[in-house]
């Protein structure tokens, strides 16, 4: 029992920590490639920024909901870790091989909405509050799309267990078999980590939104937690659409990590080349265009599985 439990948990946290660091590094590389401003050192930059935030004073607002103000980033980070707990890193290496892994990921998305709302609400300041309410509308809309898409991948696997979803892709990866799935799921990923064009919670027009009043270690944790959510999402996407650990020559874990990095790179690139739509516009788009597309994806997956 000892090693069965220890190995996957160690792998999980190693991937999480390394992933968070790599998200920051990649994002810096993408940013300087796009803006044409060479940065000094991409690999040290996140550590330097982290050191600065770690040493900075942590200010609260005048009368915050102090408990939730502290708790929200912690829980957001924990949700990301829990989402990764159901991900198989290689054939047998999985922390919690729940028979309802896909549903667990769905509830991570739903709880993330609550936590992001709480983070904005508890500051008791105008911009965080606007960011929080804005996120709720969008966060709730992503959930349905994500459910449709993930039920689509569960059909050929005949199970909600992510290990079986990976195994069902032995002949053909879901990204080919269900061509609409991954693009839709990537939108969900940008959404729940409120990254780039779907950064509705911490947007520039709100001077940082829910993070506008946050400084010091608190901001460090919030940034880390957002990156962690992106990492967790990329793990789910790699397992459900890119065949997880399956692949020739290399060990399963290496394949899994490579696929995660691919998804991360795509997300980070998308995050910096697309403009943030007005939230209302995107809400309508999500329900009127994306939801029917997700429905279509499910029908496609269903017909294909029979």
């Amino acid at each position, binding site marked *: 029992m000892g090693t069965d439990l220890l190995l996957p948990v160690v792998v999980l946290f190693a991937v999480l920590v390394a992933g968070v660091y790599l998200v920051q590094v990649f994002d810096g590389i993408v940013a300087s490639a796009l803006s044409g401003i060479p940065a000094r050192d991409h690999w040290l930059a996140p550590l330097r920024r982290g050191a600065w935030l770690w040493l900075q004073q942590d200010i609260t607002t005048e*009368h915050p*909901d102090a408990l*939730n103000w502290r708790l929200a980033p912690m829980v957001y980070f924990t949700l990301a870790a829990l989402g990764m707990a159901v991900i198989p890193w290689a054939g047998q290496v999985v922390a919690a091989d*729940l*028979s*309802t892994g896909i*549903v*667990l990921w*769905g*509830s991570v998305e*739903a*709880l993330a*909405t*609550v936590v992001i*709302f*709480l983070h904005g*609400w508890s500051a*008791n300041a105008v911009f965080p509050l606007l960011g929080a*309410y804005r996120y*709720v509308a969008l966060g*709730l809309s992503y*959930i349905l799309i994500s459910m449709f898409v993930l039920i689509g991948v569960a059909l050929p696997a005949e199970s*909600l267990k992510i290990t079986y979803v990976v195994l069902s892709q032995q002949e053909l990866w879901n990204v080919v078999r269900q061509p609409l799935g991954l693009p839709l799921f990537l939108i969900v990923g940008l959404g729940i980590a409120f990254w780039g064009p779907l950064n509705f919670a911490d947007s520039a027009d709100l001077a940082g939104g829910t993070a506008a009043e946050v400084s010091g270690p608190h901001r460090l944790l919030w940034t880390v937690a957002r990156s962690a959510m992106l990492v967790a999402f990329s793990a789910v996407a790699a397992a459900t659409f890119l065949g997880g650990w399956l692949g020739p020559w290399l060990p399963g874990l290496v394949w899994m990590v490579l696929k995660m990095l691919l998804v991360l790179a795509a997300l980070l690139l998308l995050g910096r080349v697309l403009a943030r739509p007005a939230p209302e516009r995107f809400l309508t788009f999500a329900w009127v265009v994306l939801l029917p597309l997700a429905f279509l994806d499910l029908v496609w997956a269903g017909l294909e599985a029979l």
Partner: protein
Amino acid sequence: MTVADAVFYILAVIAIVSGWRVFRTDSMVRASFLLLLSFIAVGAIMLLLGAEYLGIALFFMMAVEMMVMALFMVMFMMNPAGLNPMNMVHQPRVAIGAGVAVFLVLAAVALFAQFPRNSAPSALDPVRSLGRELLGDSMLIFESAGVALLATMIGVVVLSGAGGRFGASDVGSRPPGLTPDAAPAGPPEQEEAASGGGHHGH
């Protein structure tokens, strides 16, 4: 006592304490999410009981539901963050009496009833059997649930949609007065005043 027992007792305490705090906090947002915490603890207990689907589905559903409830509670309540303390308890004596009575009945059931002792077969896959049930005996119930949910959706749209294909939904309706014989509440409607009409024609 095994780890599972210890976890059960901790979860039970969390469920009860957070459920009680729902009524003792002044903030609507805190009240909603304390209730969510209580449900999460119950969901985790369901996981301990082996109901893997229902437990996690409870997290899922309750997260969304409590989030929406928080939106509405903040919108409806004066003083939603409880900046000024208030009493959230109404008719406490009756409530306490009813609560104690229900607790005693349930506790008696728990202590004295004979529960079957056969545990679930280890090969049972609850999700799969639930799926078979939906496609088998319970199909009619399942499809009726679909119709009921459709009715819910239409009701929601009719009641809460402010504008539709045929224009704003409050056109031609006037809210009742706040006191008997008082003028209708809400902003005066100009075209009605101009036509000299009161409530006729509605």
